[in-house]
């Protein structure tokens, strides 16, 4: 009970801070927006039509790209949430938290839920581009997508928090995250189909948990409209379904939450 209270207040403070810095919300859309509009439009106008739709029409690159960009903003926001811990350490607030009579486990989990909620909200805001992209989403699809984004965001946030809990300065955190973030993003099916990659690259994509998150987003956004079975992730020659994708993401997340909790409970 007291653990729930503690998680709640940690989560609540994160949301409060997010809300008080709304400006950042808009700034964080600039990059995904540019990717979608420039990259997407540019490539889809000069390149292929992908796959064959159920009604016989294919889908264009921008439609393929869109779920990847949703994944991008969730990934970036979630992983960068760890910086709030480094910030708290630098500005001293972490002491107030660490000396408080609340369990470290609830602090780590509260932080994870806070970052994941914010990343999910950011992902949801991306859905305003749905009409522009030319896909349609039912309410059921949107709810499914929110659930998927949240699980994915929890896993990634926990990873960010685990790393942040071992880092003392903002600069180091930024550098470490850039080193992690871009490989995780580029080595996933976010920007391009991964079916015909050379095997070494394909292997890297398959050990990247982000791949399965993005794959689940893509399936849930596109599948009902267009047949995209050729573009799904596969593992050991098995084509992944949404539940299988998100199960892998969740397993990764559980390990990360465990590491984050453990790292937090030995904080000095």
């Amino acid at each position, binding site marked *: 009970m007291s653990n729930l*209270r503690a998680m709640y207040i940690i989560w609540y403070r994160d949301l409060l801070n997010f809300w008080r810095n709304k400006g950042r919300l808009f700034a964080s859309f600039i990059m995904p927006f540019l990717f979608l509009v420039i990259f997407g439009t540019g490539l889809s106008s000069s390149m292929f039509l992908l796959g064959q739709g159920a009604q016989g029409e294919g889908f264009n690159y921008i439609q393929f790209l869109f779920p990847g960009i949703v994944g991008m903003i969730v990934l970036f926001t979630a992983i960068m949430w760890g910086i709030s811990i480094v910030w708290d350490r630098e*500005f001293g607030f972490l002491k*107030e938290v660490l000396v408080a*009579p609340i369990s470290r486990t609830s602090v780590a989990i509260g932080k994870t839920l806070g970052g994941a909620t914010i990343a999910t909200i950011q992902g949801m805001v991306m859905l305003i581009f749905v009409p522009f992209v030319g896909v349609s989403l039912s309410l059921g699809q949107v709810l499914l997508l929110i659930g998927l984004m949240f699980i994915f965001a929890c896993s990634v946030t926990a990873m960010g928090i685990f790393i942040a809990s071992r880092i003392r300065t903002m600069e180091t955190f930024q550098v470490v995250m850039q080193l992690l973030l871009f490989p995780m993003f580029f080595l996933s099916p976010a920007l391009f189909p991964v079916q015909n990659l050379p095997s070494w690259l394909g292997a890297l994509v398959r050990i990247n948990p982000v791949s399965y998150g993005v794959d689940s987003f893509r399936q849930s956004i596109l599948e009902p409209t267009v047949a995209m079975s050729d573009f799904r992730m596969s593992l050991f020659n098995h084509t992944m379904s949404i539940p299988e994708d998100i199960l892998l993401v969740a397993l990764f997340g559980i390990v990360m939450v465990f590491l984050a909790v453990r790292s937090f409970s030995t904080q*000095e």
Partner: protein
Amino acid sequence: MNKIIEVEHLVKRFHQIVAVNDISFEVEEGEIFGFLGPNGAGKTTTINILCTLMKPTSGRVILAGFDVVRQQNQVRRSIGLVFQDPSLDIRLTALQNLNFHAFVYNIPRAVRRKRIEDVLRMVELWDRRKDAVRNYSGGMRRRLEIARGLLHYPKVLFLDEPTLGLDPQTRHHIWDYILDLRQRESITIFLTTHYMDEAAVADRIAIIDYGKIIALDTPDALKKRVGGDIVTLKTENDEAAIAEIRHHYSIDAQRDSEGLFFEVQNAEEFIPLLINNFNTEIHSISLRRPTLDDVFLKLTGHQIREEAGGDVAMRRQWAMRQARGQPGRFR
């Protein structure tokens, strides 16, 4: 009386630095216990260990009956802190910072608002309660930290140089509130400070230097160690006056920019005696009681704040001579 804090052979080492070097002491329940010492003496490190933020290298600390290493949660439930360094969320408002604290420390909803209003009014921030702390001045932030520390009523309240950087009037005001709160809620206070007048509110003071406790006593008893009152003379001819004092009373007077000074017991009675048969012309004479400053100077050979006072070099020499014969003082 109960012992609320028991520290036995506490040591904290950071690589080569020994920040806390085998200290032992006890604090009684309800007491105000002062920790007095210069920069880097190990005061904050000691507090960090007592409040579970750091693990000791060796030694044992029992607080409110709990071991600070093995029973961290119970210890945390028993304490409150005003940190030396900033620890507010500057992006939030004063009210949001206090609400967070109240929630974390489980202050019942019924009294939460009243208490928050009380402490904010006490530190005169009630009108600014909805401003982000980012926009506060340094002194306002400090006051808010104090307000937050006083929000829940812990068994033991740690105040690490609480009023650093506040003006005298505000300090006074805040101390009134703290002392009143302590009476009402029977809180034990563990205080560190450089301000001598602030340390004087303590029931007992430990003087700490280079990680060691070099004296532990009541403020009065400590002052007695200086050996008497301090008399300052301005004379026509200091050389002659020094010689005369030495000749008649076997007292070594010292010179500094203010004139001559020396220590003597019962100065009220000594001064008339001195004046009655003194050949050198005296311009002025003054007498003051020893302060903790003098105590510190005497015990350690250096001033607690070297930058304070213009005649440091002279006073220091004097003190070194006074401290001579106490082995191991200088390194």
